[in-house]
């Protein structure tokens, strides 16, 4: 048996997981499903591409296909994507949220998603593009698995982001406030939590991680305006599987979805890949709607 699917699944899963962190935080703290989240990924990837272009050159650090300009661009793009999310919140979501009906906010996020995607197609055309066209040779690492240097680097980056994020949520005062607010918004207000800052932190973190995930997809696959939309269902499935509000849950959910998709391609057939996330999503909603690490609604 070829075990390559395990690695492929792990990598797809970590990108899904990074995206799912933002979805799960937005859902538990701002209380709506943000369907524009996938487009934050695409915008993040294009922002990084633009910054790389502005810096000029990619200066690859062998054996990687990219170098410090891309890492720098990713950090800048994370900031820009966060700015995009904050602007969108200020223009649209905050106003609708104030009216208190979350379904309206959800619909607005559909609209925002379409607008963001169309803007990308307008600015960059819908033709796929790449950070680098260099071809990387995958090295065998045993058990029939081959891995490229980029894949290893990005898995490590994901690990660092996830661990950092988990520590932030568990140990820092702002992370604590975010968890508290998601459990009881009314109480959070009276114990003196500055709700505006919690909302801002949620957008910044969610958008920055979406950007990181988008850049990784860009490095490992390609950059397209539709890249975020294509990942939206797996991302939501991962967030719900992991339990809404749980950062480790979102990442674990992402890995499970990624591995299941890759396994489906290996054992069932590539045409079933997209169905996997959907099947898992339905199964979780029917059997254990609070997800793996979620808490049942009281």
């Amino acid at each position: 048996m070829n075990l390559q699917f395990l690695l492929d699944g792990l990598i797809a899963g970590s990108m899904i997981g990074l995206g799912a962190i933002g979805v799960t935080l937005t859902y538990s703290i701002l209380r709506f499903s943000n369907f524009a989240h996938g487009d934050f990924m695409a915008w993040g990837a294009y922002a990084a591409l633009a910054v790389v272009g502005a810096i000029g050159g990619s200066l690859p650090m062998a054996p990687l296909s990219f170098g410090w300009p891309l890492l720098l661009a990713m950090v800048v793009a994370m900031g820009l994507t966060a700015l995009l999310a904050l602007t969108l919140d200020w223009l649209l979501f905050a106003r609708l949220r104030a009216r208190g009906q979350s379904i309206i906010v959800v619909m607005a996020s559909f609209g925002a998603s379409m607008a963001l995607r169309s803007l990308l197609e307008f600015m960059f055309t819908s033709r796929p593009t790449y950070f680098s066209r260099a071809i990387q040779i995958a090295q065998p690492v045993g058990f029939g698995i081959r891995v490229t240097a980029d894949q290893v680097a990005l898995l490590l980056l994901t690990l660092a982001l996830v661990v950092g994020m988990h520590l932030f949520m568990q140990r820092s005062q702002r992370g604590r406030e975010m968890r508290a607010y998601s459990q009881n918004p009314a109480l959070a207000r009276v114990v003196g939590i500055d709700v505006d800052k919690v909302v801002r932190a949620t957008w910044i973190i969610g958008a920055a991680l979406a950007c990181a995930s988008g850049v990784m997809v860009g490095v490992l696959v390609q950059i397209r305006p539709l890249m975020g939309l294509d990942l939206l269902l797996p991302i939501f499935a991962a967030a719900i599987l992991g339990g809404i509000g749980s950062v480790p849950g979102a990442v674990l959910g992402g890995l499970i979805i990624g591995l299941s998709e890759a396994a489906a391609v290996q054992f069932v057939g590539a045409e079933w890949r997209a169905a996997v996330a959907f099947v898992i999503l339905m199964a979780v909603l029917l059997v254990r709607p609070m997800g793996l690490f979620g808490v049942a609604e009281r």
Partner: protein
Amino acid sequence: MAAETVLEAQGLTKRFGGVAAVNGMSLSVGKGEILGLIGPNGAGKTTMFDLLAGSVGVSAGTIRLMGRDITGEPAHKRLAGGMARTFQIPRPFPELTLLENMLIARQAQTGERLWANFTAPRRIAAEEAAAKEKALGLLDLVALRRLADEPARVLSGGQRKLLELARVMMADPKVILLDEPAAGVNPALLEVLIARIQEINASGVTFVLIEHNIDMVSRLCSRIVVMAQGALLFQGRPDEVAREPRVIEAYLGGSGA
């Protein structure tokens, strides 16, 4: 009143649709006082607390905290300004530990700023350690320290009230509004609660207390304000209130004087 005024409300009014839940209510609380706020159900006591703490906005009137007009300030600013409140039915954050519930309530720390977690980790760590020590000390005060690492959902109703009292102390308030602290608390725990309130009061903290347990009110309060139908009915010492015909009539639901 000889002491200086800490909290003062004038002509406070709150209308919900056409109904005025609080209607032109005024009160003033002196420094170091424990003021009782009583009245029949529906008199507007809790709404009065909501207005004072900033959970809901006023329809009319002004609120002053240590001489400063805070009428338009949101709740978290009032807390930072020195006024905290507890609830009739306390609800901690169920999935946070007791310690985390305490730490949530501390005020304006460097750790709140996203960047500072990276730029000034040592200062953050020091503040965190100091806050933890203070939180554990306060949990000790209310006899909950051994549960510090348990999620708050395991607490009984009475323990939740104690946790809430400890939590509001985290912000070093000058004034604490207590909404029915005795309701649903077993007698043994109630004695602990009364003793803690007296201790905290002795350290210079002012209290306003909504309470139906008249025994507790008479033991704690030197002065009582009686509300009925959203307005001031009477105020005076506990023994004066107990003798006042209008108060008795309001409680017994008379047809009005």
